[in-house]
């Protein structure tokens, strides 16, 4: 889908190269870390509470004496998995609805978009809290809720990107031929908005990562004792003055991942020539 020439353009700029390196590093760490863990991430030890970084515990230990390095290595896995699945849900329903509305146009489009406006005005975190309060904490339950809530913005992006093309003659030509609406969407419009949506998907993923980590921080996301950056920050914030390392490491991991994804997505947007399109949509 993305060819070698595009990758070469992305890597030729420092920001693109840094972004791609950070993302690849994080993904490799998340996948491979179970094989190279220095310590058991869950094992507690009363002797090792809040140890300073040392040779055997390079990142120090936390309030319960667990190895922070091992926990930080694994701490992104659960959130990344939820973010990936929720992004898929958000992209699929957001794209289908956005493209359909763009193609149908007219009154249906106007009215549906007002409904989307209204739904977007309800903060996503509020919806999640209501659902969690009703259904209880569970990572699996988060996926459809987050997917719905983050998909609303995909509707805007997909619709706006497609509007650029629905008025073009090749869509008119397909209509004149008598092609089915689904064929026009999939064969004529989707290939033209694919790059925009791919970049948008990467952005969505980074926002979802932040969102899920925030939920975990609030105690609504990943359940303990699973190592998770949001949980780790929540857990260590009380001891921040005496043991700042316990908060700093998970924060550094989360920020490098988010910055990396955004840098890489920006570079890909420029290389694919869709940055202008995204900017007009955002404005």
């Amino acid at each position, binding site marked *: 889908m993305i060819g070698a020439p595009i990758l070469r353009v992305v890597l030729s700029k420092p920001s693109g190269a840094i972004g791609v390196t950070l993302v690849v590093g994080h993904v490799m760490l998340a996948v491979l870390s179970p094989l190279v863990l220095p310590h058991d991430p869950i094992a507690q030890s009363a002797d090792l509470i809040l140890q300073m970084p040392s040779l055997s515990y390079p990142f120090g230990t936390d309030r319960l004496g667990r190895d922070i390095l091992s926990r930080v290595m694994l701490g992104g896995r659960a959130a990344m998995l939820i973010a990936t699945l929720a992004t898929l849900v958000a992209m699929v329903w957001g794209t289908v609805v956005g493209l359909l509305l763009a193609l149908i146009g007219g009154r249906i489009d106007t009215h549906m978009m007002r409904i989307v406006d209204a739904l977007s005005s309800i903060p996503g975190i509020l919806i999640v809290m209501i659902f969690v309060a009703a259904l209880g904490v569970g990572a699996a339950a988060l996926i459809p809720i987050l997917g719905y809530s983050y998909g609303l913005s995909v509707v805007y992006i997909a619709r706006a990107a497609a509007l650029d093309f629905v008025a073009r*003659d*090749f869509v*008119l030509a397909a209509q*004149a*031929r*008598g092609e089915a609406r689904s064929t026009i969407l999939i*064969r*004529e419009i989707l*290939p*033209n908005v694919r790059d925009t949506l791919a970049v948008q998907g990467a952005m969505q993923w980074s926002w979802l990562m932040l969102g899920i980590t925030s939920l975990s921080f609030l105690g609504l996301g990943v359940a303990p004792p699973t190592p998770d950056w949001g949980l780790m920050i929540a857990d260590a914030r009380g001891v921040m003055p005496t043991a700042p390392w316990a908060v700093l490491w998970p924060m550094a991991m989360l920020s490098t991942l988010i910055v990396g994804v955004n840098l890489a997505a920006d570079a890909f947007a420029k290389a694919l020539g869709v940055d202008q399109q995204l900017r007009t949509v955002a404005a």
Partner: protein
Amino acid sequence: MTLLRVQDLTISRTGSDAHIVRSANFALDSGQTLGIAGESGCGKSTLLLALMGVVKPGLAVTGGLVHVMGQDLRLIAPEAMRRLRGQSVAMVPQSAAMALTPTMRVGAQLAEAMAVHDAIPPDTIAARTTTLFARVRLPEPDQIGARYPHELSGGQMQRVAIAMALACGPKLLLLDEPTTGLDVTTQAGILDLLDELRRETGMAMVCVSHDIGVLARLTAQVAVMYAGRIVEDRPTANLLTRPAHPYARALMASVPRIESPGLPPSIHGSPPPPGETGRGCAFAPRCSRAHAACEEEPALSPLTEGGRIACHAPDHGPLAPTEMPDPVVAQEAGAPIIAVRGLVVQYRRASLLSRLTRRSLPDPVLAGISLTLAKGEILGLVGESGSGKSTILRAIAGLWPPSAGSITLDGANLPARVTERDRTALRRVQVVFQNPDASLNPRHTVREILAQPLRLYFNASPTEVEARARRLIADVRLDPAHLGRRPAQLSGGERQRVALARAFAAEPDVILCDEVTSALDVSVQASVLALIHDLCHARGTSCLFVAHDLAVVAALCDRVAVLHRGRIVEEGPARTVCSTPEHPYTRSLIEAVRRASDVRAHSFGES
């Protein structure tokens, strides 16, 4: 002092020896005019920009010099260059609609053009704005400055752009396709204005156009460019009647002429891509007079009767009758395939609010049109923009449902909307759009583009699609290698051929052509017209050919209908309508075509 001197100017792609413009040489004094003619991609716009000291990114001046009023543009300081532009040299851009800022009143834009160059005292700017608007013959010159560009017509926007170029009284005016995209009558008005302005001010003009008619009207001298080189450079009248370079001759012959209906001959092959020329004469591969000597590039050498030519085998005869258009064989009128009765199309129904406030309904776009298209016939539909000609075509295609009237296909009623038509009816009527850049999906290969109708109408299997696509691509005289390319890798003419192949893939009874040649070069237009003619006649396909250019319609069509403000004002055999027009509107249309192209009506070189 010579106003403009260009000597051995060579412009190349940076970091390669691909020359876009090669050793251009010419000079111009005050009041003199030069036209630059040639097909797209021959380097004429690059050359024109260089006269303002501008080269596009990726290009660089690699040799020669441009002197404007004795100053070498390559040595001039940026500040002096800024003063030079506007006060000494000004340019009218190709599309005024794109060049004007949409959110700024045109008066303010004109004032800005004056203020930038500090040549005009600020307190006189307002008065000068009015004077300039009056000079470009805009109505209500003291009021029109308060309008926004979208409140003006295309011709008026072009006049504003000309006023901006004239703002600081330039000595040299550069024109890049000054009338492209305008109606024939509007075009004639703009050309008249430019000619008058030149006489009044005594400024020199360089005009780039692929339309020989425009150059004939504006310039005393024309340089024909091919593959980055000037190949013939002569007084206009001389060049138009007795061009000597085989390329110039072919170019002249490919212009459809209203006096002699019939298909103009086209030039075989296509020009080399910019910068990719071999050692010999660049035109030799397409030239019927090429011989051994042409493997050496000919120098641009003087002609005895004035002017210069770069050719080893010039043809000094008048444009021979054999090179003049072949008359189209008129088809025997068969039974009607499409019959349109009392077609009325209106803009969307008036809103409740405007009905309550009793505002009048807008005029209908089409007011009761009736016409028939016979089997195997090519019917031309001519009119200015806004006359409703494209609306008729869209109504027949089912893309714009009429508010009244009926359309029948082979006697059977054709539902108003494309979504209500059955697959056979859809297959039998195919549309070809104006601009192939827009009508071909940029993400599809040619193979995929041709496969769509084959799969939709014939449920063709992959092997069958491949076989048929190959046959179609050969039918439109393209190479099978084109099947794997995307539209961006094709030239404009090739893209329109692909669009035609897609329409014919459906094996239609009727094709509807909407201004299909208006975005193409004249020489390419000639070959596309010939292709449409051959495809329709070979298959007995009927064609409704919509165009704004009467000469083009006359060249291709058996019958012509002239449309004016939503009504058909005249209808008849193409030849009769062009030679003995009945309706005053048809007469004014023909007059405008003549005025824009007929050299003999004007004298040259006087000031």
